[in-house]
């Protein structure tokens, strides 16, 4: 079956033209998803997925209208799926069956995608290792002593191991790009507003964005094109069109790319080497590469943790044991129902962030933390807007370190988000792109960032680098 599950979306479409049925494709992926030795899945929708595949087989003559016809995919378990468990990897929502589909799920369904399951993650997306969830940690398939990355760790591992053809994740501070990096797949967080957040269970609303994890850059462009567009259910969604697949073959002649000194300086030696190699490849392919300094970036991490914790404490106030989600059995008083449901329903990392959010929003701290963080956000956004007047892309690491050892938790991990939170604080699009493995066979990646709604630049550079790496241009 691996001749099916190792294929990209483009290759699967070609196999379909040669007679492979949607059912055969779905069966191959579901088999892997059900075996799942890496705890990547919380739910596998076996029967429903097979029925959907059979239904698609019956309308095969119309397949050109469906760019993802019969392609099995997984969605992170914080994206609502009607009648299918959506738990956010939390005891709080362990039995939650949404009554509607997220807009992203509807778009993929309309494009012909087959949902085969919901993937494991850090609880409510709060974490960088996919080990804070109620259903246990996700295991890195390359080395089980190392972190799978988070919070969309299940989505990244499922793509990397052939347990789905592509996956949806969500990225609040790097949660698509970091696990993509640790598992050797392509991860894209588009511009804030590109994909409707309707049905994405909120962590930090001004930072959250649905993203895409795929085997290669072409698949990423194919899937993202299906997800973009204005949605009446999300007032922050954008009408801007995204012509991505078409842009892939345009090359990078004349494109201007810069390496951010502050981020390469803090990276380990192997990561620095991969950035140097990528820069050389870009020059060889006709782009120009320079080094720039953006000292304001050092403020980003602080602003991110203040804003994300503040928004989380507000968003997660809705879980009170009354309307939905976990409800403590002790219903003596309304107050004890609230407190016990929240205290028993949330895990340690979520509680820590909620209390941290409460701390920065408290009357005495608000201007010193929350308002200052919003001002810093304005400063960084303004700085990067200026930078992008003369540049097409920024090149930097995804994380200062190659995947870290398991068990590294809490505030210690926060510092590793320095390279990814920039795109969330500013709303910019970013891609993490595989660039080989280190001497121990652990995947290495680099990150590309572009100006708002200029995903085309990401995909042009990403595709050119991917092709050059495949061809051994190193």
């Amino acid at each position: 079956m691996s001749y099916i599950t190792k294929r990209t979306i483009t290759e699967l479409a070609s196999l379909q033209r040669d007679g492979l049925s949607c059912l055969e494709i779905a069966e191959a992926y579901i088999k892997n998803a059900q075996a799942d030795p890496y705890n990547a899945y919380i739910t596998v929708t076996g029967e429903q997925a097979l029925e959907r595949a059979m239904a698609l087989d019956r309308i095969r003559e119309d397949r050109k209208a469906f760019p993802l016809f019969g392609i099995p995919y997984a969605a992170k378990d914080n994206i609502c799926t009607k009648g299918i468990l959506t738990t956010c990897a939390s005891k709080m929502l362990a039995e939650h069956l949404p009554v509607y589909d997220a807009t992203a799920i509807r778009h993929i369904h309309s494009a012909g995608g087959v949902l085969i399951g919901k993937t494991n993650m850090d609880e409510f997306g709060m974490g960088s290792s996919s080990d804070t969830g109620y259903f246990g940690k996700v295991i890195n398939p390359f080395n089980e002593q190392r972190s799978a990355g988070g919070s969309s760790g299940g989505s990244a591992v499922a793509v990397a191991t052939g347990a789905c053809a592509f996956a949806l994740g969500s990225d609040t501070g790097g949660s698509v790009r970091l696990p993509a990096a640790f598992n050797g797949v392509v991860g894209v967080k588009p511009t804030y507003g590109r994909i409707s957040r309707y049905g994405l269970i909120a962590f930090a609303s001004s930072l959250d964005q649905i993203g895409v994890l795929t085997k290669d850059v072409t698949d990423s462009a194919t899937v993202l094109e299906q997800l973009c567009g204005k949605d009446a259910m999300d007032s922050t969604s954008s009408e801007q069109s995204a012509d991505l697949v078409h842009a892939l073959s345009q090359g990078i002649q004349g494109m201007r790319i810069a390496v951010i000194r502050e981020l390469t300086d803090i990276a380990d030696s192997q990561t620095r080497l991969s950035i140097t190699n990528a820069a050389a490849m870009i020059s060889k392919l006709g782009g120009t590469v320079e080094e720039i300094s953006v000292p304001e970036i050092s403020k980003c991490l602080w602003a991110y943790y203040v804003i994300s914790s503040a928004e989380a404490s507000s968003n997660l106030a809705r879980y009170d044991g009354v309307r939905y989600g976990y409800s403590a059995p002790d219903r003596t008083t309304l107050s004890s129902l609230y407190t016990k449901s929240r205290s028993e329903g949330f895990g340690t990392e979520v509680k820590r962030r909620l209390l941290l959010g409460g701390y920065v929003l408290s009357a005495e701290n608000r201007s010193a933390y929350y308002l200052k963080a919003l001002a810093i956000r304005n400063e960084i956004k303004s700085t990067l807007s200026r930078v992008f007047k003369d540049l097409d892309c920024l090149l930097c690491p995804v994380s200062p370190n190659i995947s870290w050892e398991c068990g590294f938790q809490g505030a210690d991990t926060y510092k590793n988000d320095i390279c990814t939170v920039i795109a969330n604080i500013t709303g910019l699009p970013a891609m993490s792109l595989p660039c080989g493995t280190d001497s121990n066979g652990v995947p290495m990646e680099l990150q590309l960032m572009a100006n708002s709604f200029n995903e085309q630049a990401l995909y042009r550079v990403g595709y050119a680098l991917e092709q050059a790496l495949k061809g051994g241009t190193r």
Partner: protein
Amino acid sequence: MTDQDKRLYRLTMLDPNESSHGADLSEAIDFINSYSPDTAFEPCVHISDQRNVTRQDEAHSSHLQKEILSLAPKAADDYVLVPKTV
């Protein structure tokens, strides 16, 4: 972080290693206190360039009342049930 703050957020620590959890929280607070960046900029609430996103207000029904009530831990008729407050 005082007990009053924890009450405000309706949270108590149930972790058997409550003291280490407390230490972790202090660590997180220390993390944001370890650095106090300055800026001359004004706070920015919206990162999107879109402004005044409005639409016609049209009444319609989503017919979801029954389904939504079915999610409530306790419900009767058209209401969710909570412990008596008076």
